[in-house]
């Protein structure tokens, strides 16, 4: 595999930690989408894994510069390509109610990113074609699938109504579900995983001025993150866990200490003097270590 350059910044990675997905609309060229669609017409099974051997798919989709750059940012160097392909191919109209779930194999706590679940739309998907629904921020929620199956539409849900060639990169445990399809048009939706092979480290596009202590884990910079129950306000819990996830991805989970109150990670970006805020958080951390009775979050 050719070397892949990371494309995400620190802020992008925080957004991913908070929302649990990155959407690239129409990123795959139309010609590739047509090839994929034609292939899936000929191979209409639910697991057309042979497509993973096709050079046009490897080069055109899996290693698309934008997509692979994001994968490289989150999984590190030498990530592995999928070994299994699922096609949630829907031919006839169907009613789909409830059904929220995360996929089998999800590990929630700590919020690890050892693999990414990716959804690729090789064709335009409209609302009547039963787009998949996702719940932003839900990848941070430790909850039993059996107890989420009755939920209906969520205020903050995200529907994959998107043009052909769109790719959605998700944290594996994100909640999702099928929605009702009234159209008679066949809809393909490919789903596959990329795999980490190296320990996590902060080797995406880093900003020398970025400071993990004073960073905004609420998804600031005008791109305030969605979370399950908190749009537009972001509640303390997702902020904490998003920060924990960012530390995990940075390879610094052993340094993750929740300060709470107006300390890290909730409000530190607001301090009047970053140096003083940094001193305050470090002092607290040193005290927690010295007292030895600190309850790790």
């Amino acid at each position, binding site marked *: 595999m050719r070397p892949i350059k990371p494309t995400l910044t620190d802020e992008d990675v925080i957004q991913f930690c908070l929302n649990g997905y990155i959407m690239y609309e129409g990123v795959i060229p139309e010609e590739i989408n047509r090839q994929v669609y034609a292939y899936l017409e000929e191979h209409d099974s639910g697991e057309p894994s042979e497509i993973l051997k096709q050079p046009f798919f490897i080069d055109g989709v899996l290693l698309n510069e934008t997509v692979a750059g994001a994968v490289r940012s989150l999984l590190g160097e030498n990530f592995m390509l999928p070994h299994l392909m699922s096609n949630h191919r829907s031919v006839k109209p169907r009613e789909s*109610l*409830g059904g929220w779930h995360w996929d089998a194999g999800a590990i929630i*706590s700590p919020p690890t990113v050892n693999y990414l679940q990716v959804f690729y739309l090789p064709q335009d998907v409209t*609302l009547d074609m039963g787009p998949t629904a996702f719940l932003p921020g*839900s990848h*941070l*929620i*430790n*909850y039993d699938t059996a107890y989420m199956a*009755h*939920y*209906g*539409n*969520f*205020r*903050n849900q995200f*529907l994959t109504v998107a043009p052909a060639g769109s790719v959605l990169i998700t944290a594996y445990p994100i909640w999702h579900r099928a*929605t009702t399809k009234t159209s008679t048009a066949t809809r393909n939706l490919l789903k596959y995983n990329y795999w980490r092979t190296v320990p996590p480290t902060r080797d995406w596009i880093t900003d020398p001025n970025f400071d993990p202590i004073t960073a905004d884990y609420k998804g600031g910079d005008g791109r305030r993150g969605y979370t*399950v*129950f*908190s749009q537009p306000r972001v509640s303390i*819990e*997702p902020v*904490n*866990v998003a920060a924990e996830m960012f530390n995990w991805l940075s390879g610094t989970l052993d340094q993750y200490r929740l300060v709470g109150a107006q300390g890290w990670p909730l409000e530190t970006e607001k301090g009047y003097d970053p140096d003083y805020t940094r001193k305050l958080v470090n002092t607290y951390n040193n005290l927690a270590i010295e007292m030895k009775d600190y*309850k790790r*979050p």
Partner: protein
Amino acid sequence: MNSAFDRVLETCITKLERGELTSESLREAFKEIISEKKIKQSILVLLAGSTSLYSTVHSMFMYENGVLSDGPVDSKEWPYQKVSDAIDDGWRLIQFPTPPAIFLDQKQRFVPCEFVLEKIVEVYP
């Protein structure tokens, strides 16, 4: 005629027009209606951000007249934007959100505040 109620009503009207309606036949008619009455429960589940009745509804589903519904995709079209809106519209609260045991686990990051409401409808088959 599409229900026992309609059928009995028509019978009573016919008897009335013929001058055959008696107090006894009225009693029998009402007994017949009541005996065929069925109770149906409609369920509305609202997920909110807190246990306050004024909290915003973040997810809904409804089971009404034997039909399950996830609610409209667009939350602006939901019938109730706050839990209190549903109560004011006649839905009876039958389960107030309670924290499950897993709430005690600090790793638990989300507990849906789930309000369960019902409406009882009398149906005449």
